[in-house]
């Protein structure tokens, strides 16, 4: 009886009433809410935990931590200038090398220079590069890049050594070696995401450009790349983030020095490699100082993201002709 009543209730005036709580949509919405709040909360939690442990060091060293260049565990005197510089330098070189290469690969793969099956193979190989563990890149760097940097570095240093950037003596485990392996590691990120955004440029844009008499060159650089720019910038930011945070391969190749040097051929250190090297055996104020360094690294990544977002907006306005 009750059942038939409710059936009738739902069918009032021949229109199906919508029940108050719909299992599918409402639960899904709640799930989405919880998931997104959890992600945001997690980030704050991580920052809070790190900041909590870093706090004693922040009180003791203040902002001097960021412009003081000695990292001396013996006297408990800490500053991270060499590591900040190393992080920025190695990731910048990596982007400088990987961005043109990655963009070129992605253009090559999204245009019809090759028959589709061949492109699929190249694409697959590029994406496979992204799944190689970083320790393997490190080993490859030891076997291949170190001898290469040493043999190329020696003549370069002897001719251009008067410029600080190329000053000798040449070490195999150096800033340049680490930067090059980083470039290789972020190349697939840049290539894969840029390719996806280039491929999603509507075909009509291309046809329109050709219809207006553009050459292929003009179409690629005047229409397709500007349209796909948000994706390319996003790829670059993601890649930069990975380069700044990469630990294992860098620790294996950079030579882990806490001395400041402008030279590409000298050992250096990054914030991530510093943490990897020293955290396990640290005690006392050094743990706090390392956490402070971790906080600085997080902040640096945040800055890069904000800068990337800014570049992106500027580029989009420019493309839209708003300038």
């Amino acid at each position: 009886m009750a059942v038939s009543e409710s059936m009738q209730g739902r069918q009032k005036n021949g229109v199906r009433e919508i029940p108050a709580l719909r299992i599918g949509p409402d639960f899904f919405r709640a799930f989405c809410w919880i998931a997104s709040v959890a992600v945001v909360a997690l980030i704050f939690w991580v920052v809070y935990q790190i900041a909590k442990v870093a706090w004693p060091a922040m009180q003791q060293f203040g902002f001097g931590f960021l412009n003081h260049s000695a990292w001396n565990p013996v006297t408990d005197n800490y500053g991270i200038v060499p590591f900040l510089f190393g992080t920025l330098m190695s990731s910048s070189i990596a982007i400088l090398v990987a961005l043109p290469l990655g963009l070129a690969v992605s253009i090559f793969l999204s245009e019809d220079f090759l028959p589709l099956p061949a492109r699929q193979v190249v694409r697959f190989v590029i994406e496979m590069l992204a799944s190689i563990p970083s320790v393997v890149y490190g080993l490859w760097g030891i076997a291949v890049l170190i001898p290469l940097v040493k043999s190329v570095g020696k003549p370069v240093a002897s001719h251009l050594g008067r410029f600080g950037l190329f000053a000798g003596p040449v070490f195999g485990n150096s800033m340049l070696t680490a930067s090059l392996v980083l470039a290789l590691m972020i190349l697939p990120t840049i290539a894969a995401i840029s390719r996806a955004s280039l491929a999603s440029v509507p075909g009509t844009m291309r046809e329109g450009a050709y219809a207006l008499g553009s050459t292929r060159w003009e179409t690629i650089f005047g229409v397709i790349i500007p349209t796909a720019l948000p994706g390319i910038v996003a790829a670059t930011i993601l890649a930069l983030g990975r380069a700044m945070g990469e630990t294992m391969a860098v620790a294996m190749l950079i030579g882990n020095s806490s001395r400041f040097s402008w030279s590409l051929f000298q050992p250096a250190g990054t914030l991530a490699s510093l943490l990897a090297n020293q955290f396990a055996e640290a005690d006392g104020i050094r743990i706090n100082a390392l956490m402070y360094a971790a906080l600085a690294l997080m902040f640096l990544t945040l800055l890069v993201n904000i800068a990337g977002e800014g570049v992106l907006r500027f580029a989009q306005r420019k493309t839209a002709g708003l300038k």
Partner: protein
Amino acid sequence: MPSMKLKHVYLLSTALLAVVGSTASAQMTLNGAGATFPAPLYQRWFAEYNKTHPDVQVNYQAVGSGSGIKQVIQGVVNFGASDAAMTDEEIAKVANGVVMLPMTAGSIVLAYNLPGVAELKLSRDVYAGIFLGTITNWNDAAIKKDNPTANLPDLAITVAYRSDGSGTNFVFTKHLAAISADFKTKVGEGKSVSWPAGVGGKGNDGVTSLIKQTPGTIGYVEYGYAKQNSLSMASLQNKSGNFVAPGAKSGAATLASVEFPENLRIWPSDPAGAEDYPIATFTWLLLYGKYDDAKTAATLKDIVKYGVTDGQKFADELGYIPLPDKVVKLVEAKLEKVQP
């Protein structure tokens, strides 16, 4: 009806508990963590001990001396291990107290990569100078003076150091600080220091690979690693002025001359004997002064006793220096301090 269901759950859980409980009482699992340097030897001991005592399972995690000490302080392990023993402040944090037992020893060698130079002698000033970055070329007059017959090349010296915090750093810098006033003021001693020259590798294997990669490199590694990787090792000048090659014999000479204090914590940072190899160190097992469970205490004591007696026969083949009898007796006496 619901009460019946509850009863089922209750019965099931008690049954489960009983099963878990009975396996736990039959099988004794001990957990330890700490130094990486003695890990191969400890793991060998625990495996051998397990053969004769199948009911005792010892898990040892080679997480590093510092982490081992932390875990002992937090009370999450049954025992710890450390190359740097434990400081008095660290011991003060443990309510039950800590008994430090030297279990084995090793020497730290200066391994080098110089093609064509099979034997290298380094005097005290020279190797301190190399690691200070003041002696930078292999044809330096000071090195030539120690090695008049060697064919020393005109090649830059690349110093390879441990970039991670480690007991090896601790012992090596302690020795350098003991023999060189300059090193003591400019660099100092500790598990991590800021090296004035050279390139850093992570772990003994990291330094080993740096040495192998580049001719002209010199670095410090555990004797066992250098032996396994057949690196060339330099003879070092000791306090009495003799050049001594590293090895089990010269290491044992160093250990035999050590006078232990009451807590058994000592580093022969600059041994004086004529045959002594200058850089040798003990590595300690950290036991609590008192265990809540009598069986845990008894089993641990038995394992330690096995390690310092029968277990010492594995030391040499794995690249460690066997403990002198004098030290074994001290450890056995100290072991009695561990209360059930």
